[in-house]
């Protein structure tokens, strides 16, 4: 670069820097990697929502980190002993961002809206909604649903303004999103950023926040940054004040930064390796078990994730009661058992360490989808499989392609993937025979499992019954080696202490509006 040019650039930059330095009470958050490119803020029809969604919408109920339920837009609730009626008292004085009132009529409109959408399952057991009075609704159930409160607390249950929703049709959530939350959506540019401004009328904070009134932050820009390392550097240099997810690679560096605080809350995600039970050699349960016991959860947790989060030994996150299975079903690293099982199945070690049977090598396919974390993990998994005699060929697909490939049902064998969910019904999602291909990537179809599935999904009347039923279902899936558990990540986020002060304890299952309500801004 020629010198004069450089000088001009520098002085112009200095000038601009002085002009655009952020005014007080305006902050920038960043979402990265998997949240980038979320196309809409329509909670009813969306298949995925980003972290900013909770700032715009409130839900009837909130769930805390200890899995307990707390009032939000519903002030209280009550169910009949047979589980066939739920009555919700709504909080008075709540208004949408467009000035429309929030009342029983809204709920009567809202629940049927889910019919035919991708999120229909959440309220599928609600037969009809009865308006008792202006602030009281009663759900009449088709069948008892011990999971109703959990569903109502999920991120897809943010309640939109009926007027805006009907007026915008297909474009709702893209050009505008109107809720009752502490922030209003000012502008959304997909893949780039969402600008949120404070809802000054907000006075209906839940008991998960100290502050029940309007937020202290005036304006939040939520930027989308696809590349992890770029996002990390933005936080380090003050371009971004809060990073919703911090890749574990960067944790040591961030912890060394004095002005950055890294917070870890219990995770909602499980990383695992589904095994296609209908593709030889994995039709043999011994080969499946051998693959499962070859995974060294502990060394992955220590070396790849620096001891953050937990090792996984089952399919469910550890905070769920259904995760506490009988130890004999838990799957953890046992290379000797793995080798012995392969010997028994007739796979003998060849000269290059790869096993073979009747002249065929133990060559298998190992897939994953694009994303730094999976790319790293899949290499370690491959090496661990090799140690017991599997030769695994890796292919990395983009997310669209990999799902299309799974649906073909015959192409895949092993994969490294993850899910994020905080309820045991995820086992039904990934292992029910009727969903074979995708999401049942394991193509698991077993009569006993189907029986346990029906019991857990439809025959549970109370929460405790449901826990027992799902635990039995979970244990059976483990005993069939339809997958290998790998890792349970923690939710790690980080913020700049120069600009923000967050409460010491994070309430709720994720970093959502109740925490941001209590956030203080400094300059």
């Amino acid at each position: 670069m020629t010198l004069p040019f450089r000088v001009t650039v520098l002085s112009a930059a200095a000038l601009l820097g002085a002009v655009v330095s952020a005014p007080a009470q305006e902050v920038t958050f960043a979402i990265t990697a998997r949240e980038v490119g979320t196309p809409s803020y329509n909670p009813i029809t969306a298949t995925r929502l980003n972290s900013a969604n909770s700032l715009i919408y409130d839900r009837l109920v909130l769930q805390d980190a200890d899995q307990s339920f707390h009032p939000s837009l519903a002030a209280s609730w009550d169910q009949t002993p047979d589980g066939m009626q739920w009555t919700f008292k709504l909080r008075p004085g709540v208004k949408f961002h467009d000035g429309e009132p929030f009342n029983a009529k809204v709920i009567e409109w809202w629940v049927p809206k889910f019919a035919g959408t991708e999120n229909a399952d959440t309220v599928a057991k609600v037969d009809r909604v009865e308006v008792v009075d202006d602030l009281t609704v009663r759900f009449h159930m088709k069948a008892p649903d011990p999971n109703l409160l959990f569903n109502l607390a999920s991120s897809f249950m943010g309640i939109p303004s009926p007027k805006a929703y009907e007026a915008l049709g297909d474009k709702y959530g893209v050009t505008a999103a109107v809720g009752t939350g502490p922030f209003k959506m000012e502008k959304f540019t997909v893949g780039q950023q969402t600008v949120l401004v404070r809802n000054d009328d907000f006075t209906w904070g839940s008991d998960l926040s100290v502050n029940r009134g309007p937020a202290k932050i005036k304006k939040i820009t939520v930027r989308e940054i696809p590349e992890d390392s770029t996002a990390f550097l933005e936080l380090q240099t003050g371009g971004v004040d809060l990073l919703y997810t911090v890749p574990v690679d960067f944790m040591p560096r961030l912890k060394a930064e004095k002005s950055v605080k890294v917070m870890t809350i219990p995770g909602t995600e499980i990383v695992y390796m589904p095994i296609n039970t209908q593709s030889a050699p994995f039709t043999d349960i011994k080969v499946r078990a051998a693959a499962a016991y070859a995974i060294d959860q502990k060394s992955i947790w220590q070396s790849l994730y620096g001891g953050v989060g937990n090792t996984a030994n089952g399919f469910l996150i550890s905070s769920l009661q259904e995760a506490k299975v009988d130890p004999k079903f838990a799957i953890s690293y046992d290379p000797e058992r793995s080798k012995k099982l392969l010997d028994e199945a007739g796979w003998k070690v060849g000269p290059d360490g790869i096993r073979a049977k009747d002249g065929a090598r133990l060559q298998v396919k190992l897939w994953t989808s694009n994303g730094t974390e999976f790319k790293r993990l899949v290499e370690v998994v491959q090496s661990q499989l090799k140690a017991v005699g599997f030769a695994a060929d890796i292919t990395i697909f983009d997310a669209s392609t990999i799902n299309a490939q799974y649906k073909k049902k015959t192409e895949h064998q092993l994969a490294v993937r993850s899910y994020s969910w905080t309820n045991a019904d995820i086992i039904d999602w990934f292992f029910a025979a009727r969903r074979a291909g995708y999401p049942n990537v394991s193509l698991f179809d077993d009569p006993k499992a189907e029986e346990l599935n029906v019991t857990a999904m439809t025959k549970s009347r109370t929460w405790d019954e449901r826990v027992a039923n799902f635990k039995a279902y979970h244990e059976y899936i483990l005993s069939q080696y339809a997958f290998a558990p790998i890792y349970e990540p923690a939710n790690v986020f980080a913020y700049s202490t120069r600009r923000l002060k967050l409460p010491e304890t994070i309430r709720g299952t994720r970093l959502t509006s109740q925490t941001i309500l209590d956030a203080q801004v400094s300059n």
Partner: protein
Amino acid sequence: MLGYFVRRLIMLLPVFLAMSAIVFLIVHLVPGDPIDHMLQIGASAERRQELAAKFGLDRPLVVQYALWLKAALTGDLGEAIILKQPVVDLILANLPYSLALGLSALLFSTVVGVSVGAAAAYFAGSWFDRVVMAGILMGSMLPSFWLGLLMILIFAVELGLFPVSGARSWDALVLPVLTVGIGGVALIARVTRAAFVEVAQQDFVTLLHAKGLTRRRIFFRHLVRHALMPVVTILGLKVGWILGGAVTVEYVFARPGLGSLLITSLGQRDYPVVQGCLLMLGMGVMLGTLVGDLAQAAMDPRVRDRMS
């Protein structure tokens, strides 16, 4: 001259048709479809069909193509399936960012490339020539994602001079421009240097020397004009590079632009957006080539004669 221009424009029409057909076909060859992104995992086949019908994706490809082409000819590129906005609006929203990055990078690489190339030619064969040209070559040969990250580390993190990423203020443009531009600097410097050296060997220059003109005067008065011709041609060919070639840099710096729009939409199989972007880029390049040729014609009477 005008006749030539009109003829060239008419020749673009079949190119447009062929390009639109290929773009359409290629986009639909990519496995997966936008419906996958609108459905919750494990949705029923009926639901899929219902949505496919809604967006006309259940019709034969030929019909879909004909409908799209018909609309495209009137300037309507359709409505994005996932992003739910007119494709033209999406392109227009991203175009300024691409143009800002592309044109600044072009300006930067032209100014620096021509200066460096000319200086190297002036001192042809000296150590200055060799060191500078080798250095630039090396810089241009580094993969741009790597160079971009390095720039961020040095200028944004260590020195704190520029923002790490984004496009919220104008100084955020500097590092991406340097990253994209350095490839152009090397190319233009090499072309310029070669052109200068070559022109300097031509008879008329020997004549000027014989007439007793100083080397400096010959260089600045006579060589520059002749040597810039190939540079102009190169610039005409670089329109695609301006509009869509910066995909990697946009990704590293989390910048909006046609490249990122294209990549995001390709990932979500948002057909109308991908088709629209590719068609835009392709036609942009065709027009750029045409403009480059015309500019060359305007500067060089020999070319002009050949055209009439």
